[in-house]
């Protein structure tokens, strides 16, 4: 969905159009949930944070700066809410992943689940700033420029932070035997 579509939907949301809000919800629920899950390592916490994010978005449309892009606003709220949640709960729950039926063999499912779990474990071992940049780049597919916009840091800083984050993640994955 383009920025123009988002802008139009936001204008409709400001007028109380719930249908427009639902369209935004459908568009962004998956990336928001995934970002929260990768930041928190818990589906339950990710679900709660996702709900909080969308309620905050709904209540704060009037404060949205139309010169910015919607995704950078909602992803920023997602990362902030996730980091706040971690601060409040101060806990790291074990990964509870429900293996879904994707038409693969049980061995493939286990391999996929182990890979996801191993990467998640490594992600949780690096600090919030580094994890945020990895989540934005690798799980939300953001460009350097977009990451800079979301985190409100210069692109040069994005590059160096991403480089450091990858080095730390690589070391953590080597320890788990995945990399």
């Amino acid at each position: 969905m383009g920025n123009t579509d988002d802008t139009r939907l936001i204008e409709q949301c400001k007028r109380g159009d719930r249908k427009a809000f639902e369209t935004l919800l459908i568009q962004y629920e998956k990336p928001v949930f995934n970002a929260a899950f990768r930041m928190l390592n818990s589906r339950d916490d990710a679900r709660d944070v996702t709900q909080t994010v969308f309620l905050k978005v709904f209540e704060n449309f009037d404060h949205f700066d139309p010169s910015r892009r919607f995704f950078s606003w909602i992803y920023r709220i997602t990362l902030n809410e996730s980091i706040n949640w971690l601060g409040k709960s101060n806990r790291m729950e074990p990964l509870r992943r429900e293996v879904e039926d994707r038409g693969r063999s049980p061995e493939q499912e286990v391999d996929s689940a182990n890979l996801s779990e191993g990467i998640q474990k490594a992600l949780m071992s690096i600090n919030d700033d580094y994890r945020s940049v990895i989540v934005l780049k690798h799980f939300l597919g953001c460009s350097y420029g977009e990451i800079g916009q979301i985190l409100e840091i210069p692109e040069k800083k994005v590059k160096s932070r991403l480089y450091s984050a990858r080095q730390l993640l690589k070391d953590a994955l080597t320890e788990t035997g995945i990399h």
Partner: protein
Amino acid sequence: MAIDQKFQDLINADIDGEITAAESDELRAFLENSAEGRDLHRDLAHLCSTLGSVEAEAPPPQIRHAIMSSVKPASVKPETPGFLQSLFALPSLKYAATFAAGVILTLSLVNSGQVSKRAFDDVTGLVGTVADPIKADLETSVAIDETKVAGIVSLRSSGSLLILDFDLMATEPVEIEADYNDSTIWFNGFAQLESSGTAVSAETGRVRLRMEGKRRYAVYLQNEGSRETTVRLRFMADGAVVHEASLDYAPAE
């Protein structure tokens, strides 16, 4: 020897597809003469490929319903409350009015403390004012997150009045049974935010509701003596139970 920051950035940019043609030429020349650079490029490319192979987590299917049922339609919130709305925004008056409505309703339909099922078969459509959830004493609440029904049911108290506050979204007709299994507690009224859409009937120890769509309503139970009790909720769609929950009330010490 450590790799120069410039080439670290170029290696990252190359892997991320954010490199210009000129930078790409520069990087290629560097990598031809740097085994360390080639190792770094290979390791980072492998890492990114590993990360890229992780499948996205699917959000819980009910999350959309839960979010949509939590956002209030703009039309529900009037910009300027009228005189009566302001008056009944006062918690004491609101509860008094609700309680009085319940008592009148009860007295007009039954001549004992118990409510017969037959008497309340026609209560459908009774319109009232849902108590403001912020002002009431919240005892407990449960979240429902099923495909066919999602939202929150709260148990609140005000003196000897227990208020079951339903804030739900159902994608198809859903029946709800609220069992309180205590013959001394009796159904004392019903109020809904919408003018129609929820059917209610009551018998000793049980209230039955039927709803569809987004609905906000309250069931009032008279609990003389403020006895400890548990309200068991059962949600049914197409005759099958889709969710069960219970709400406990314990009087303050």
